[in-house]
């Protein structure tokens, strides 16, 4: 076999490159189902539909844990004292600055609804523990206040807020954010 080194591009070069390119596109296309199958399947997504929660039985100062999309959701019925503490702090100096008003729905300040997963590495913080009238994460020592804001420890963010809507004063739907005020 002889090798002709030619500076000129031939039709054969074009065929090689075109064949290789088609092969690469095919291989990439074959990867799509192989990778996509690992994402949540249809039944998992269906089971993640919004849930309605009745707030009436939750006593003043009580924190309950409900589940939505396999995630724990903390519903904190905050006392006047809890609200006061959350509003009085100078929020500009916090690690993840957010005023209390942005953590709750207007007119429903006594209800704090947060995803109960530490924003550090996913542990579930313990309610009514720590120095800030909120939560303490036993894994790596993060502490959250009564607005679910990170105050101390390695967690980078405040406890995330799930999308939710007040259907009435004593009922919320978690998983759906309504655009019009309730």
């Amino acid at each position, binding site marked *: 076999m002889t090798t002709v080194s030619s500076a000129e591009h031939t039709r054969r070069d074009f065929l090689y490159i075109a064949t290789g390119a088609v092969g690469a596109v095919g291989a990439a296309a074959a990867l799509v189902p192989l*990778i996509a199958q*690992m*994402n*949540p*399947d249809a039944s*998992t997504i269906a089971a*993640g539909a919004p849930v309605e929660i009745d707030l009436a039985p939750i006593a003043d100062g009580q924190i309950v*844990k409900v*589940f939505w*999309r*396999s*995630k*724990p959701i903390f519903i904190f019925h905050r006392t006047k004292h809890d609200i006061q503490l959350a509003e009085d702090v100078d929020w500009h100096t916090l690690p993840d600055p957010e005023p209390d008003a942005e953590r709750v729905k207007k007119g429903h300040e006594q209800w704090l609804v947060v995803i109960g997963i530490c*924003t*550090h*590495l*996913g*542990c*579930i913080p*313990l309610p009514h523990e720590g120095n800030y009238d909120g939560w303490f*994460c*036993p*894994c*790596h*020592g993060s502490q959250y206040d009564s607005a679910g804001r990170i105050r101390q*420890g*390695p*967690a*980078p963010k405040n406890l995330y807020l799930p999308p939710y809507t007040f259907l009435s004063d004593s009922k919320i739907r978690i998983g759906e954010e309504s655009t019009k005020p309730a």
Partner: protein
Amino acid sequence: MSGHATYQPTNRAMQWLEKRLPIGGLVYSSFVAYPTPRNLNYWWTFGGILSFMLGVQIVTGIVLAMHYTPHVDYAFKSVETIMRDVNYGWLLRYAHANGAAMFFFAVYVHMFRGIYYGSYKEPREVLWILGVIIYLLMMATGFMGYVLVWGQMSFWAATVITNLFSAIPVVGDSIVTWLWGGYAVGNPTLNRFYSLHYLLPFAIAGVVVLHVWALHVAGQNNPAGIEPKSDKDTVAFTPYATVKDAFFLGCFCILYAWFVFYIPNYLGHPDNYIPANPAVTPSEIVPEWYYLPFYAILRSIPNKLLGVTALFSSIGILAFLPWLDTSKVRSARYRPLFRQFFWLWVIACIGLGWLGSKPPEGIYVILSRVFAFYYFAFFLIVLPLLGVFEKTKPLPNSISESVLGAKA
């Protein structure tokens, strides 16, 4: 290398096979006539021990898989069934669980030995990097195997470790959801971990073949850290290395058996005998002992992204070791300063392991930071500079001289 006999089968059947597939000759030249440096000490027996442990893990793992059910409702129960009902199930599971610990123990000795004697240096860089890849695969396999038990520690280890990826900017959360196959660690996660836990050991076996291949191309390093020059410097693999490996493997198995039969749960966490509960995080989450140093590095940094980066870097940096160490002399025997820094580094690694098991508060955090700093400084500051400033001791002229003195 020449000087040792080549394979000449006398058996007719073997002659017939050899003409068609020279596998006998391959085995003979690789594991019988293969010349090994005559000064190898017992630290060199851990390669064989590791191959043995990989075999033990695969064999016990395959039979455990015959009784295990990878479903969130049955996983924990099926493990208890293995412990109580399956014939010899307790033995197989304890051998597998403690086998993982012994596997990691052996790989750490193997790695410390490689670093002490400079086994990663030219021309063994690829050999070393293949080793780092095996170690990474071992970590992934060990982690996923631990999750299969589906106890409290399993579940929360899976949660914490997969959440490490959420530190990645922008795409982190999507990656984590993709890893989970859901909105949290759940049945899809358990299923895929089972599939991968079964697969990865065979991937490890494949890389081990490359590792041994690369070893046989470059030849073994040795305590003197100089290349064999003549036949006087080497002995045949069989019987010399084979018997030495076998003897020390026996000693190693005594330790292994002691764990399996006398203290099978010593290295485990009692909380993993509580079935997984996604609603309650245990009061403390501690990984298996062999991950503790990296866990301590993660926790020593109060920033999530930086902590996760440090964790992965602490392992990834090993792959660059052949180029970070600028000294031409391999063995620590002839590097007085390196030897001191090396032992300090060993202390830092073990210290980090101890700190990883402690709560992240007070003096433990400060010590973690000191040790983590030294861990990286060893690679990034000490090793590059030592090659320039260290005055090394004179090397012996040959391996046989280093063993027998100058008269040989």
